[in-house]
C-alpha cells in the first residue's frame, strides 16, 4: 500500500467529514446515531471497501491506515457504525473469503450467544445478540458463532431478526437482535479458523481504542480553542497556569493512548503480545481523565447540548466500556504475566 494511496484516502475522508459532518448534522442524527446520506457519501468514495483485497475492489489498507481513518470519523462523531463497517466487516469477509454484502453491514462480537443447530448447509439459529451497533439500520449483521464443527462466520439478513432498541450514552443505537429458529442458506454460514472470535474481540478493542483517541483529540482541540477565546479576569483562560497544567495532563494521557494504539495496529498481524490490551487500557483511562479535564476547562458552556463537546465526551464514556473495559483488559494482561512468572516480565515488556 503506497504512501500516495494512504494520503489520498485520508485526505478525501478528512475533506468529506469537514464539509459534511457538521455538528448540526451530528445533532440531527441523535437518537440512533445514523445519517444514511452521509454514510452513502463515504461509500461513494469506496472507503468502506478500502480494507478489502484488490480482488474485492479494495486497496488492502493496512491496520495503521484504517485506524487512522477511524480516528478521523470519531473526531467528527460521524453518525454511522464506522468501526464495524470500515474495519471489522471487511476483516471478517476477507478471513472467510466471501464477498462483502451490499448495504449497511454491522458486526457484533456476541455471536457466541446464538445456538446453532442442524447440519452443514441446513443450519437453524436461535437466540439474541445484544448491543449491536446500528442494529435497527443494518442490512446485514456479521458475527462469529460456534457451530458443531468449530467457529463459523454468520452473515445474517435484516429480515431474519426482530429488533429491540437501545442506546449507548452517546445516543448511538446498541440494539438487541432476536433470532427465532431462523433457517440459514448455505452461503450464510462459512467455516473460519478457530480463534477467529478471539481475534475479532481484539480487533474490536483496537478499533474502539482508535476511536477513543480520535474523540479525545476532538475534545482536546475544542478545549484549546475555547481557552484561547474565553477571557476571565481580563485575560484568556489559556494564560492561567492552572488551565495550562490541566491541558498538559490531558495531552500526556492522550499521547500515551495514541502511541499505544499505533503500536497495537502495527503489531496486530504478528499475534497477541499484549499491545491491544495495553492500548484499550490506556485509551479507556485517557477517556475518563480527558473528558473530565475538557469539561472542566469549558465551564458550564461545555455542559450544554448546544455546544459540541458532548459529541466527543459522550462517545468517550460509551466506547471505553465497549469491547472490554480497562478492567477486562488489565485482568487479561495480569493473567498472562502471573502465568509467565516474574522472570519473564521484562522480556514480555521488551519483546
Amino acid at each position, binding site marked *: 500500500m503506497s504512501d500516495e494511496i494512504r494520503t489520498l484516502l485520508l485526505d478525501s475522508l478528512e475533506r468529506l467529514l469537514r464539509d459534511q459532518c457538521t455538528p448540526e448534522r451530528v445533532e440531527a442524527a441523535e437518537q440512533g446515531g445514523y445519517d444514511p446520506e452521509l454514510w452513502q457519501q463515504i461509500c461513494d468514495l469506496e472507503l468502506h471497501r478500502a480494507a478489502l483485497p484488490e480482488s474485492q475492489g479494495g486497496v488492502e489498507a493496512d491496520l495503521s491506515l484504517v485506524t487512522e481513518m477511524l480516528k478521523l470519523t470519531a473526531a467528527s462523531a460521524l453518525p454511522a457504525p464506522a468501526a464495524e463497517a470500515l474495519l471489522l466487516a471487511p476483516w471478517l469477509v476477507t478471513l472467510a473469503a466471501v464477498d462483502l454484502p451490499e448495504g449497511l453491514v454491522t458486526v457484533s462480537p456476541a455471536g457466541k450467544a446464538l445456538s446453532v443447530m442442524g447440519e452443514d448447509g441446513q443450519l437453524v439459529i436461535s437466540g439474541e445478540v445484544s448491543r449491536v451497533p446500528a442494529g435497527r439500520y443494518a442490512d446485514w449483521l456479521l458475527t462469529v458463532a460456534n457451530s458443531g464443527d468449530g467457529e463459523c462466520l454468520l452473515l445474517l439478513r435484516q429480515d431474519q431478526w426482530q429488533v429491540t432498541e437501545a442506546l449507548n450514552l452517546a445516543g448511538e443505537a446498541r440494539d438487541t437482535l432476536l433470532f427465532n429458529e431462523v433457517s440459514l442458506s448455505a452461503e450464510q454460514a462459512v467455516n473460519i479458523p478457530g480463534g477467529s472470535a478471539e481475534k475479532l474481540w481484539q480487533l474490536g478493542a483496537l478499533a474502539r481504542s482508535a476511536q477513543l483517541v480520535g474523540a479525545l483529540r476532538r475534545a482536546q482541540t475544542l478545549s*484549546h480553542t475555547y*481557552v*484561547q477565546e474565553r477571557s476571565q479576569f481580563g485575560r484568556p483562560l*489559556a*494564560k492561567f*497556569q492552572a*488551565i*495550562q*497544567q490541566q*491541558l*498538559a*495532563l490531558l*495531552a*500526556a*494521557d492522550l*499521547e*500515551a*493512548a*495514541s*502511541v*499505544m494504539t*499505533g*503500536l497495537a*495496529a*502495527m*503489531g496486530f498481524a504478528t499475534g497477541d503480545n*499484549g*499491545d491491544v*490490551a*495495553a*492500548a484499550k*487500557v*490506556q485509551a479507556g483511562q485517557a477517556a475518563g481523565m480527558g473528558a473530565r479535564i475538557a469539561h472542566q476547562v469549558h465551564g458550564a458552556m461545555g455542559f450544554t447540548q448546544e455546544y459540541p463537546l458532548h459529541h466527543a465526551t459522550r462517545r468517550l464514556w460509551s466506547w471505553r466500556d465497549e469491547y472490554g473495559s*480497562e*478492567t477486562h*483488559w*488489565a*485482568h*487479561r*494482561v*495480569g*493473567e*498472562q*504475566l*502471573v*502465568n509467565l*512468572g*516474574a522472570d519473564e*516480565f*521484562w522480556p*514480555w*515488556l*521488551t519483546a
Partner: protein
Amino acid sequence: MSVSLAPAVLPASSEVLRAEVRQFLSEELAAKRFVPGCDKWLGGFDLEFSKRLGDQGWLGMTWPEAYGGHGRSALDRYVVTEELLAAGAPVAAHWVGDRQSGPSLLRYGTEAQKLDYLPRMASGDHFFAIGMSEPGSGSDLASVRTRADRIDGGWRINGRKIWCSSAHRVDSFILLCRSEPPTEDRHAGLTQFVVDLRAPGITIRPIHLLSGEHHFNEVIMDNVEISDDCLLGEVGSGWAQVTSELAYERSGPERFLSTFPALVALLQRLGKAADRGQRVAIGRLAAQLRALRGMSVSVASALDRGDAPNVEAALVKDLGTRFEGDLVEQIRLLVETEPEYGAEDELNRLLAESFLHMPGFTLRGGTNEILRGVVARGLGLR
C-alpha cells in the same frame, strides 16, 4: 499542534546486543557483584561496576571511536540503558557523564577537551557531575549568580552550586556561570566551563538525603582560577548549551523505570496465588509501562533521526515520573506489607528504597510543573 510521537520499534539489530547485556547481567548477579535496587541510577554508585561496563564497550557507546567511543546508534545505547535500569544495576557513577556531559563535550568541546575527557569517560575512569542549580536558582535556572570573571589567560569563579549529585566522589563537573552582568535578555551572558572538582578554592560540603545517604553536595567556589582551556563552547552561549544538555537529561528510560524492580518483586511474591484484584492491578500497571516504553522509544527514535523532541520528552517525563511513584503506591495497597530499608525481604527493601527516594522523581531534571509548562507551550497555550 506540535506534539508528535510516532509509534516506533527498536531495530532488530539491537536485539543481539540486548541478549549480550542480559548475559552479562546474569553473570554479574550470579557472582553477587551487585544487589538489584530501586533508583540505582541515582543511588547505586559503584566505580567497579561502571568500569566493567566500560570494558564491555557500553559506556560512550555513541561517541566516535577516535574519542574512545564505539560509534553505535542511540537506539543501541537505549537498549543497554533500559536493560541496566530494569535489572536495578548500580549505574550512578557514570550515568551523568554518559548521558549528558559526554554528549555536551562532543558537541561543544574543543578537540583537546574531547581527546582529554571522552576516552577516560568511555573506559570508566573519569566521572562527571552537574553544576547547574544554586541556592537561589532551581526551576528558574537562568537566574544563576555564580560568576565567571575574566583574568589573564583564564577565568576566576566565585559562587555556590547546590544539589550536586555525587560531586564528592566524581572528578569533574560542567558548571553554568554568569559571565556578563544580567541584561533584559535573561538568557544572555551565561557560559559553561568544565571544571576539576579538586581544583584549589573548591569546597564540597555534604547534604544528606532524608534516607541518610550522602548524595547531594554543596559546591562552594572561592576565587577558583581556571584556564581558558576549561571554557566549554562559546562565551555567552551557556543557555543554549544547557538547554540541549537538558534534552539528553530528560528523554531517557530512567524517567519511568526507577521503581520497576519493585513490580518484578511483587510478581515474585504473589506468584500464582495472586487474586483477581491483584491480577487486574498488575495488568493495569503493565499496560501503562508498555505505553510509557512505547513513548520513550518514540522519543529515542526521534533523537536518533536528529530531531529535537524537547516537548515530547517533557511530556513523557511528566507521565513517566508520576508513574514511578504510582507504581509503588499501588503495590503497597496490593500486598499490605511494611517497607523496611535494607530488609531481608526483597519487596520490602525495594519499596523502602522507592518511598525514600520518591520525592526526587518528580523534581530532578526539571520539575513536573515546569515540564507541563513546556508541554503547554508546545501545545500553543502560552
